[in-house]
């Protein structure tokens, strides 16, 4: 099957919205949680409480939330390093994620991994990877294991458009296609790899077109529309689960913040950023929910308060948690005497 042309489904022009009120509120809550969580992390970073590198997902929330809504809880997830959103959307407790950012013993990886390497194996989240493209072959292996064991799980592999010019992207998807593995590659195209605009370094700047190299189905979708993401991922995942082989989704989105903290962003204009902010996925979903009568304003306000409390609790938990003990350095790793 050749790569399909982009289908731009958007909530606003979908007449019958296929979503329940409970789902609508759940997605609103998760997107708001990710947003608020990261705003607080940003603050803590500014106060020197979080160190190292911190890459925010603000503006891209609809991709993680829409995708997780389409996946089953035992489908496998593996991601790139801009990963706070995925784990929160998957339902990991915010306090464990915040504690990891703080490098505390109570963090998701006991403070050993930090922001870029969030993993929660019992939720089938196999980790964030800070080597660009490094995890794509792993996704192939995860899917091969599922195939071998005849498990009905699909692997969702998330990465940025910047990862589609490195060898592991081609090697990983090629063999996944040869073996018809149950794998969906979800490419978040936020247009920049660090300070480099994608079209400056990619011969083909519509990522979905690269799928023709593997002869697998691909779609380009509006990644700021949580419903469009859910629908596309659902379609692709179920096709893959039914034996349709790997699939690729290019979710068009934009990161509102710099690449990481302290990025002066001289590679893009303020106007461009403002224009993108007008497509804020949370504001959009809120509008859709209200105009379609899926929920009332008071429901959304209640959620906002819940999110605020949950995030504050996460910060408190992280701040009051102990630092990891140095003995941790010699656990979970083979260390010679």
């Amino acid at each position, binding site marked *: 099957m050749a790569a399909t042309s982009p289908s731009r489904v958007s909530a606003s022009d979908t007449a019958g919205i296929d979503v329940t009120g409970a789902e609508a509120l759940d997605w609103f809550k998760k997107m708001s949680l990710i947003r608020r969580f990261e705003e607080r992390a940003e603050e803590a970073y500014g106060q020197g409480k979080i160190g190292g590198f911190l890459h925010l997902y603000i503006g891209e929330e609809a991709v993680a939330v829409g995708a997780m809504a389409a996946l089953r809880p035992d489908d496998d997830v593996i991601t790139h390093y801009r990963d706070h959103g995925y784990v929160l959307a998957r339902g990991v407790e915010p306090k464990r994620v915040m504690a990891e950012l703080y490098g505390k013993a109570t963090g998701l990886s006991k403070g050993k991994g930090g922001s870029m390497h969030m993993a929660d194996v019992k939720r089938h989240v196999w980790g964030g990877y800070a080597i660009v493209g490094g995890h794509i072959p792993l996704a192939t292996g995860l899917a091969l294991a599922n195939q071998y064991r005849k498990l009905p799980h699909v692997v969702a592999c998330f990465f940025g458009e910047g990862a589609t010019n490195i060898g592991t992207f081609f090697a990983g998807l090629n063999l996944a296609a040869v073996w018809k593995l149950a794998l969906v590659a979800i490419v978040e195209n936020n247009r920049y790899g660090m300070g480099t605009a994608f079209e400056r370094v990619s011969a083909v700047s519509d990522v979905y077109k690269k799928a023709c190299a593997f002869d697998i189905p691909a779609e380009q979708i509006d990644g700021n529309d949580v419903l469009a993401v859910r629908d596309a991922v659902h379609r692709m995942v179920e096709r893959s689960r039914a034996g349709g082989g790997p699939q690729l989704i290019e979710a068009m989105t934009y990161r509102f913040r710099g690449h990481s903290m302290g990025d002066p962003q001289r590679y893009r204009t303020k106007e461009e950023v403002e224009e993108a902010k007008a497509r804020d996925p949370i504001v959009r979903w809120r509008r859709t929910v209200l105009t379609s009568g899926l929920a009332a304003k008071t429901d959304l306000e209640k959620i906002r308060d819940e999110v605020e409390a949950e995030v504050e609790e996460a910060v408190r938990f992280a701040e009051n948690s102990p630092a990891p003990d140095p003995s941790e*350095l010699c656990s979970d790793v083979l260390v010679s005497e």
Partner: protein
Amino acid sequence: MQVTYIQAINQAMHEEMARDENVLILGEDVGILGGAFKATEGLLEKFGSERVVDTPIAESLIVGAGVGLAIQGMRAICEMQFIDFISCGFDQIVNMAATLRYRHGGQASCPIVVRGPCGAGVHGGIYHSQNPEAWFFHIPGLKIVAPATAYDAKGLLKAAIRDDDPVIYLEHKFLYRRIKEEIPEGEFIVPIGKAALRKEGRDMTVITYGSPVHAVMKAAKDMASEVDIEVIDLRTLLPLDWKTIRTSVTKTGKALIVHEARRNGGIGGEIAARIAEELFDFLDGPILRVASRDTHNAFATPLEEYIIPNQERITEAIRKLASY
């Protein structure tokens, strides 16, 4: 002129690109962004996008294309955004670049510099803190340099760019803006293969390089009333300046090796073995090593501080060796 370590690196590239139009630089974000750490700032404006090339995220391409350019007589500076990602270009370095001159029976050479920020101390976690010198120390055909001062950072980079063989240039990111010193205005080169005797002393030789040079110098000063330390800053790791090491250890009879890379399989082991093999008769004590603990780097601050060789561990090792 007062410059930081990273400014010295930037100056070296400016000067060499101005001197030789065959020099160009390839890397992620080296152009418009001026480098993730600003090492390449101003190069694009000065030399244009034909010579300052923003590449896709593909380290094997950055190195491999550099090798191709080099065969044609160009000189490529290949930037790894963090030196950790050099592993993604490993094959191109080890199998392509390092063997090229030998494989061609001397018909062609491979003047590339693979440079990038190494080292811990900035909470970079697992993939943004590594010291990869030992991965390459094993490979004939490569040179490896690791400056500790702004003067050496500049002089060694200029030498590396002019060298006809592939050079891995390790710049320690902890030093980027923490080191600021006076360097000469005019042109200077620091030759590859020559260590620097940072301090003369009679009681023991401390052999080090990169970031720990500063901690060792501090120890030498603080402990001056107890022990008279001779400090060798290797500057070049491959080829090792064995002559300088031999002369010093023959004189002092004691050797301590300090590096930030892990101990297991680290360069210190090779130096220690060589001293044991060739200078056994001169030794008055065991050859000691202080290095990062043999585990992965951690993100959490207290853990990172525990891993890398700190002042305390260096002092302790010096005392121990002095007691022999």
